[in-house]
């Protein structure tokens, strides 16, 4: 009997809260001198990363190690999948090690879901294409709860390249599920048509940014210029950069990282007291420990999910 975490929609509000309550107790472990608990001793966690990733892969690795699991990290960036070796073959090979969990990051939507069909292990989606990144959404909700207690009634703006962002999709759903309202804002070329079907509002200017309690900024990638989504980084920064002039007193700033300083966020904003960016990174390990624990040691929150 295993469950998976493939989409943030696998969790209802109670399920999210259960994982985050668990994460809070693991955050306490992180404050101890010896940061390990024996929960997954003797079990194996495979990290399968088909895309460059620093934060997500290192925090999953650390999370598994702090739970005393044996960890195998397989990175194949620019990988064999693209050369035609099938994802299925790789997963079946790794499944021969009888892992308890496979954490997968792949540049293709639905990859985690496919992997779940090919293995007996619990599968955790660490980012599939531009589709979803559910553990990022969980750690962002965790970070906000740590700071504010609750997301109920919050107005959260997600600013930037929503079109290419799996974080945006998982976070819109998670924030809404936790009681917040979400507005996405960015250049019209980078807002997906019919994004409002996810239950968010959309704006193309920051004029009403003052209404936001939380400003969640997305990474602006340089290749978007080449693809003519925006004419220049300069124009993008003029219109959409979050800086201290645009942030008002009391607003919180978040970013999934890595940040392009001076593009989507000014350096001063990143480092200001309203920034939760450092907290987000810190939350990553505790939340991923909680996800692994809930899936593998067994609490009904995630196990209900087939």
């Amino acid at each position, binding site marked *: 009997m295993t469950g998976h975490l493939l989409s943030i929609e696998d969790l209802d509000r109670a399920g999210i809260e259960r994982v985050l309550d668990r994460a809070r107790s693991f955050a306490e472990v992180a404050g101890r001198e010896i940061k390990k608990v024996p929960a997954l001793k003797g079990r194996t966690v495979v990290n399968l990363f088909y895309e460059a990733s620093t934060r997500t892969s290192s925090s999953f690795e650390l999370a598994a190690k702090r739970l005393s699991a044996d960890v195998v990290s397989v990175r194949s960036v620019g990988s064999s999948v693209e050369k035609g070796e099938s*994802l299925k073959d790789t997963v079946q090979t790794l499944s021969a090690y009888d892992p308890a969990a496979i954490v997968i990051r792949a540049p293709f939507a639905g*990859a985690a879901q*496919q992997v779940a069909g090919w293995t007996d292990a619990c599968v955790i989606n660490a980012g599939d*294409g*531009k*589709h979803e990144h559910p553990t990022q959404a969980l750690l962002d909700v965790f970070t906000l709860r740590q700071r504010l207690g609750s997301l109920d009634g919050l107005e959260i703006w997600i600013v930037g390249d929503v079109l290419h962002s799996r974080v945006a*999709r998982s976070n819109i759903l998670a924030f809404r599920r936790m009681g917040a309202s979400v507005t996405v804002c960015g250049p019209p070329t980078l807002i*997906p048509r*019919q994004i409002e*079907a996810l239950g968010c509002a959309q704006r193309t200017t920051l004029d009403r940014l003052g209404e936001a309690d939380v400003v969640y900024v997305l990474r602006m990638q340089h290749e978007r210029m080449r693809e003519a989504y925006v004419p220049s980084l300069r124009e993008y920064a003029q219109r959409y950069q979050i800086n201290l002039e645009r942030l008002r007193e009391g607003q919180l700033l978040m970013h999934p990282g890595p940040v392009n300083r001076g593009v989507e966020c000014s350096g001063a904003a990143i480092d200001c007291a309203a920034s939760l960016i450092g907290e987000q990174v810190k939350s990553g390990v505790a939340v991923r420990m909680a996800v692994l624990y809930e899936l593998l040691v067994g609490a009904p929150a995630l196990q209900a999910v087939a």
Partner: protein
Amino acid sequence: MATEPLLSRSAMPAEILIRQAHVLDPRCGLDAPLDVLIRGGLIAELGAPGATRPPSGAAVIEAAGKHLFPAFSDPHVHLRTPGQEYKETIATGTDAAAAGGFCQLIAMPNTVPTVDQVSVLEALRARARQQASVPTGFLAAITVGLRGEELTEMAALRDAGALGFTDDGRPVVGAGMLRKALQYQRLAGGVVALHEEDPSLSADGVMHEGAVSARLGVAGIPSISESTMIDRDAAIARYEDARVHFQHLSAAASVQALSFWRSAGARVSGEVTPHHLTLTDEELLGLDANFKMNPPLRSEADRKALIDALRSGVIECIATDHAPHAHHEKEMPFEQAPMGTTGLETAFAALYTELVRPGLLTLPVLIERLTAGGSLYGLNLPRVAVGEQANVVLVDLARDWRVGERGYRSRSENCCFHGRRLAGVVELTVAAGSVAFAAPGVRTTTLEEV
């Protein structure tokens, strides 16, 4: 010397009496139980139900309660031959067609190599003459290698039997190139069929652009990618007074464009697939690559517009765009998997179940649209009439089946209807006067012959 348009392997002419089936052929004004006697591969008699005595040597099929239609014509299939026989061969593709009730097929030229020269076409036709269980004709490419750069030898290809021309799988991107092909059509003849897609709009899209693609974070193909090209190319066709056929229409805006340009005098026609008539992009939520095709499944509003256009005749015919792919190819992650679904074995049942039963389309209109495809390329319409070559299909509308439960006759299994329960079981297909398919238990020979 005129070449025969369709090729199939030689087969015994059918000698069958089909008794008391409900015969429905709207073009021939037939809609009643009749006995149908096929002798020497021709429809010899249409008699009062139960009154026809079987001549010696004829098999008898008791078909009370079943329906007999003119067999279907599919103007758009991919038989993957030459070059990709691991997906489909002429033998397996035509067997799939026979099991689906088809008596005419037109195969697309985007093979490996492309059907862009006479030698390739001749070899292909020779193979069809050996292997095809259903008469099959071929389109040739408009441009060499489908690259959109140089015209094929269209006149020579026509002389060698090409029914028409298409770069299907790709659009003719350059308006100037298309114009030259349409000018040259005045010499070569043959319908020019177009896969309409503006690659600068479809870009790296892999599904319909809409709420579902927004949710999935998968790059979308906007409907204007198709409709703007139809507008452009219909305008060129009218200017050159050329004959153009638009393949696999998927969007409401495309239907409007077709309708507009036809009333403006352009000689244009259109086809639509069973999957675009019955499914929408909602199916993609599970990222199952069997629902990935080009053009993509679109919105419910698009689907409704396609049904309306089929009903009114703005779209003249149904085409399956049967596009087999091997299991390992469709098992790739969704964004990498190839586009296409098989369709020959499910076309009638899917449309009967999803359109006729809910009252969206009448059965006579469905039969007209399923039989019209080949006629757009100058082929004979299948008709249930005395003296005609027998092209008929016997269907049990009262029985249903689960798609794929007994496997497929196609070499590939990438069917978007896989696992669905559909009503309407094909029991017998007679194509060009010979039995092409008989369901298990349907005896088509007499005891003496066995």
